């Protein structure tokens, strides 16, 4: 009985540890994703046409199919 409880406890402990690791991994990957997006947005700021309004206004394409 005691042994079973011990087993159960170990299992529960293991599960919660796994869960903690899982959550941690998820947080890390979410943080990494956010950092990746931040880098990407920094890069857009660098290369985006300076005068967006004028760029968009001047882009006219007639005579297409």
């Amino acid at each position, binding site marked *: 009985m005691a042994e079973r409880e011990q087993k159960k406890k170990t299992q529960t402990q293991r599960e919660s540890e796994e869960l903690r690791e899982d959550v941690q991994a998820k947080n890390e990957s979410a943080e990494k994703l956010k950092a990746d997006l931040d880098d*990407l947005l920094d*890069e857009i700021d660098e290369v985006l*046409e300076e005068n967006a309004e004028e760029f*968009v206004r*001047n*882009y006219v*394409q007639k*005579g*297409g*199919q």
Partner: protein
Amino acid sequence: MAIAKVCGIETEYGISVLGSPDANPISISSVLINAYVSEVAGRVGWDFETESPGNDARGFSFEAPVNAEMETHLVNTVLTNGARLYVDHAHPEYSSPECISPKQALLYDKAGEEVLKRAMKASRRFMPPGQEIVVYKNNSDRKGNSYGCHENYMMDRAVPFAKIVKQLTPFFVTRQIFCGAGKVGTEFLGSQGGVSFQLSQRADFFEEEVGLETTLKRPIINTRDEPHADATRFRRLHVILGDANLSEFSTFLKLASTAVVLSMIEDGVLDDGEIQILSPVQALKKVSCDPTLKVTIDTTDGRSMTALEIQWSYLDMAKKYYERDGIPTVGTSEEVAELLSLWEDTLCKLEENPMILKQRLDWVAKLNLVQGYKERHSLSWDDPKLAAIDLQYHDIRPEKSLALRAGLETLLDSKDVGMAVFEPPKETRAYFRGKCLEKFGESIAAANWDSLIFDTGKDPLRRVPMMDPLKGTFSHVDGLIQSSNSALELLEGLGA
């Protein structure tokens, strides 16, 4: 019965000049293409001063104009990879050679981007200081003007066109969930407003279900009947609905799934259990305007289905068809298994959360950029910066392209793309066209999709017809081309 899905993509590129926004698009398209031809072929002496350099100066033109539309083609070149590069209306256009499979058509579409990149570079020395030609691979100027990215698929002439229309329309209305190129806002005048982002560049511009038009009242299914091959055996399905994709996954999925569905139609696989959409044109726009993919569309038998559900039903039938038939019309058994599994994987991920595919599909990649930027700078959806990101996603200059920065996964080897800029596909008649141009270019008076016209100097012009896209391949003609020392020898060998 299903026949080989020989296919290809023709893309009208957007074009503008930095430092001269009012430049005439027809002249700058001509400069761009002539610059490429002069650079690549090492031909000098081309008159870049004139705005209409003329059709046949170097003997690389297509045959005489056959209709009003052809007359506006000012510059017209055939490349050694079998493609056609020309000015169509007011755009530079690259039509890929005939390809044997969706994967190969993807390769030659990417090679086309490379051609245009090289053309942009080559054009710099022909432009005044401070001016630069810039090319965009997209379909709209965000002011109501659209330009196409057309696919072509070879089909069996025996299949009634009405059946193609009926069985293909629901697929076409919904395939944008993986091959839309994304758009901020709307250009559809009848829009009720409140459209922040769309899956498709082109959905705004479609007004009919079926028709011949390509420049106004555009139809979901285009009826242009110009097979460029034996018209008693073949049909060329000319698809005008699609967006120009930067993502290799989007282009490949578009070509592969469409080729499979067309084979299914030819083999009668879709004859039972058809889905019919009640109002296809409205449904096309409705699906485009919903990046959550939750919106439903009504079918004629009273069901409400999402675009994903309709795609699943086509995929389920395709999988069964593959188990029975292997679908050799689209590729080897392994290739088809791979493309079906990619189609399935894409639908699964779209169902779970489309953002998972932000490095695979164009519209998702663009939405990720636009949404992130909007949040970072607290912008509203109508901020010109978001419109600028939308346009610049499609700028093909590596130093400016936002698609390139989105980290899109690839399917192709860049070495293969480099090769495809010059080398034709081995498995179609494009091989004969490309290799003859490479070796006997001086003796070719004109080229067309279905013929080459030789001028050997003495005799009258001699026309070599190529009415079957699957003849004139490497295995048919390479030996002869290699062993012929002149065009005359080649023609004798062909018995032409």
